[in-house]
Structures are given as structure tokens and as C-alpha cells.
């Protein structure tokens, strides 16, 4: 377990999450279950055994700048790169950061739209895990005026 330091900036945090994880994805099922049990993005990505993580202009994430209602926030995320194994959507400050994981087959385009809950204003990440293990992400800050919890 890596030590959790909330104060880390997002990039440092995301970089730290992969440093020193000697994990290799075994069966997708097993590792993804751990990823959904993870309480931080770092732990989630570590559970998925993703490799070096970097921000990439080839991954796109779109959503509202301000979400009136945190219970229903629409996102669209995609990548133009070939060789995508998985596309993930993560909300940093949710109790369960990993929202959705898509195993991309050759028969579908690596582009999805989905509606997610945000417990509070948060960074949202779309991560493309490539066949070679690289993890490329796009990030967006979403302001939530009404959270999805406690109501």
C-alpha cells in the first residue's frame, strides 16, 4: 500500500500511483474488482496494473464546467490512438473513484458517453490504458453546486 498524501497535486498524485507498483494485470476480473474497491485513484490504477501514466492530447474528456446536480453529470470520453485496451472514467473525490471501465474490442470505437455521480467538486480523469501498458489521461475540473450525497 502506498502512503496516501491528499496534499499531492494531481499530476504528482497520479505519477506516484504508478511508481513502484510491480503489478501485472492477471485476470482482468480479479484486478478490476480490486480497482473498484480502491478508495483513491492511485490505488485504483495500481490495482489495474497500468504502466507509466502521462497526460495526453490524444485522449479527450468532455463534460460540463459546472454541474448543477452532482447526481447526473454527463461525460463523453474518447481517444484517437490505436491499440487501446481499456478506457476508464475516474472521479477523484468520489468515495469510489473508479466510475466505469470499458474493455475496448476491435469492434467498437474507443469512445463512450455515460452519466456519472460526483459527490463534490472534483477532478475527473479519462484514462486510456494501451496494449503496451501505458496509461494516457485527460483531466477536467468539474464544479458541483449540489452534491449527489446526503440527500
Amino acid at each position, binding site marked *: 500500500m502506498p502512503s496516501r498524501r491528499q496534499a499531492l497535486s494531481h499530476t504528482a498524485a497520479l505519477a506516484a500511483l504508478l511508481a513502484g507498483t510491480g503489478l501485472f494485470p492477471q485476470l482482468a476480473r480479479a484486478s478490476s474488482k480490486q480497482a473498484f474497491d480502491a478508495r483513491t485513484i492511485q490505488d485504483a490504477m495500481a490495482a489495474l496494473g497500468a504502466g507509466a501514466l502521462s497526460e495526453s492530447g490524444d485522449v479527450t474528456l468532455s463534460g460540463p464546467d459546472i454541474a448543477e446536480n452532482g447526481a447526473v453529470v454527463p461525460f463523453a470520453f474518447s481517444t484517437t490512438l490505436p491499440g487501446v485496451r481499456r478506457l476508464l472514467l475516474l472521479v477523484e473525490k468520489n*468515495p469510489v473513484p473508479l466510475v466505469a471501465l470499458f474493455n*475496448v474490442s476491435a*469492434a467498437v470505437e474507443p469512445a463512450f458517453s*455515460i452519466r456519472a*455521480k460526483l459527490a463534490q467538486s472534483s477532478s475527473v480523469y479519462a484514462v486510456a490504458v494501451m496494449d503496451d501498458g501505458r496509461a494516457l489521461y485527460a483531466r477536467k475540473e468539474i464544479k458541483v453546486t449540489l452534491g449527489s450525497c446526503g440527500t
Partner: protein
Amino acid sequence: MADPMRIRAQASGGKATVRILMAHEMESGQRKDEAGHIAPAWYIQEVTASHNGNTVLEAEWGPGVSKNPYLQFVVKGAQAGDTIGVRWKDNRGDTRSDEATVS
């Protein structure tokens, strides 16, 4: 058995855009009801989609997906008349399968 999904699949330019609206509470396990008890988590965990019987998409979801989930994706090579099937399974083991014809 849960309520049916609404699936629309429209072909254009050698691919089909699939839009799905599922009927599900998607209870996160964080929310308290009126009496102050935490409502137990109840959410869709697995979603699979098929094109003419062949699986084209496998997704895994957490409790962070909104109530009555919406999903949109694009199937390559799908033409009008093809069948798109969608199946979900939630953490209580309940499942639902529906099909739609590409228009």
C-alpha cells in the same frame, strides 16, 4: 425482473451509434434514507453488448454511475437490420437482456 432497457442503434457511414437507457436505481451505498439508515449499495456491475451475437463490448461499472444509466458507444461495421444486444448484471445478481435492431 427489472424494467426493459431502451436501446436505439442508428447506422451511418459503416458504423452504428448505440444509445442505451437502462432502468436501475444505482444505489451507491453512501446515501441515507429518511430514517437515517444507509441504503445498501445496489448498482449495475457488468454490462456487455453484442453485435449479431458476437460480444463487442464488456464494461464494468462502480456505484458512481448515475441512476437510470445512459450509455452511448459506436459499433464498427454494423448495418441497418443488424441486431444489437445488451445485457447487464447488478451486484444482487439480477440481470436484464434486451435487443434492438439497427435502423
